[in-house]
Structure formats: C-alpha cells, structure tokens
C-alpha cells in the first residue's frame, strides 16, 4: 500500500522532495503539496485502490502525510 501511495504522490503531489524518500509522518503540505494537488492525489488514490473517499474524510488531515493517507485508505477499505 505504501508503495502505491508514494507512487501517487510522486505523480500528482507536486512535492518539492522525492516522494520515495520522505518519512511517513512528513507533512505533505509543508513539502509543497497544494490544495489542488491534493485533489489529484485523492482522485488518483481512488483510481489506484478502486474506492471513493466519503465526505467525512474530505479534510486536509486525511491527506497530510503518508501515514494519514494509509490510515484513511484502511478505514475506507475496511468499511
């Protein structure tokens, strides 16, 4: 899962750093991800994992780090 998340971030996150080398708790907005880029990340994650994020998870904190994204994905896939 983490590998896919990092791949999505590398392609859509517009990060100023290498998505494959950042710590899982690094704040993605601190390393360059814009709000618009976070939308692309969300849509790409939905494609990659064949899910749809519910409204309750459409908040900045869901996409603020690799660990947060992983937790969100696990929550969606478990539901």
């Amino acid at each position, binding site marked *: 899962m983490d590998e896919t998340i990092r791949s999505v971030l590398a392609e859509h996150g*517009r990060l100023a750093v290498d998505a494959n080398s950042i710590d899982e708790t690094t704040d993605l907005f601190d390393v360059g991800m*814009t*709000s*618009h*880029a976070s*939308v*692309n990340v969300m*849509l*790409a994650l939905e494609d990659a994992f064949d899910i749809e994020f519910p*409204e*309750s*998870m*459409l*908040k*900045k904190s869901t996409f603020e780090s690799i660990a947060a994204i992983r937790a969100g994905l696990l929550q969606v896939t478990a539901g």
Partner: protein
Amino acid sequence: MSTVPPTLLGDIDTWISEAFPDVATDADRGARSSLLRVGVDLVAVSDVIESVERFGDRYMHRMFTPHEVGCCRSNSNSADPSIPEYSFESMAARFAAKEATLKVLRPVGPRPKWCDIEVHRTDNGWCDIRLTGRAATMAAEAGIEEWAVSLTHHASMAAAVVIGICRPAVPLRAGGGQCGQLGNRHEGEL
C-alpha cells in the same frame, strides 16, 4: 515584520464605523475587527488542464456544480459545437474562489464538498458565492451573512479574493438595524 500603515488602518476603521453604525465604538475594536474575513488563493491554469486531461468528468463533477461547468463551457473554437470546450482559466479561477472561501470559513474538521461552494455568475456577468450543505452550515455558525468575490486570470495563473461579512458580535443599540441591511446599503455598488 510588515505592518499595515496607520493611515490605512484609520481608513478601515472609519469605513467600518460608517458601515456598522450600530456597533459600539472604541471599546469594541476587537469585535469590529472580526466582522470581516478574507481569503485569497492562486491556482496555476496548467494544473487544472492536467487534472481535466487525467481525470475528466470525475474531476469536473467532483469540483464544480453544473452551473459552474456551464459558465466555463465555450464552443467558440470547436469545429463541432456538440463537443464541449472549456475555459480552463475560468475553472482555475473558480477553484481559487472555492479555496479562498474555505479560508474564510476556516474549517477545523471535515471540509465541505467542493460543490457546496458555488461561484454563481449573475445575469449581468458579476459573480457571487452561494453555499449549500456543510459550507452553508459553517457560514451560519460563523455568523457570515454576506459574501463578495472577485476573480481574475492572466496568462498561466488564476486568482480569487473572497470576503465574508459577519454579523456584529456586540449587541446592537436599541432601534439599530440588522446585519442583513448591510447588503442593501451596498447594493448596486459593485
């Protein structure tokens, strides 16, 4: 650290005093300063183009209301009018307005859906902000009763400024008007 020039602060203070005559004066500077909230955002048009190319209708319908999509549609350069073309600059400006509106709403928990915030184009071409769902609820909770928005784009960038006007937090004087009258006071000035 930069500061606002004292003369400008004085002008703003005078304007607020005139616009909100029912709000108590000097002792309530803090309350008056919370009457206005402003948000601004800047979006690269190329980002929107890439999103539309990559995610197509999913991006469009997740981000924009049917009214907004209609406002961004242009068939002027299409050889086939049945194939919609879009002004990506207009889309970028509308995304910027939504993000600027979020900065005014200041969400701390779940954010509103993007489509809860609509940039509505009026018949005369000006735009205003219309809220539904969670965005409308958040605005009501914050006491924001009036909205103003301005969009612009140039070359590769689009921007929006959004202002929310809150109801006065201090008691109104007896016989004073309600906050809703503010809209009437400035009606037609835009």
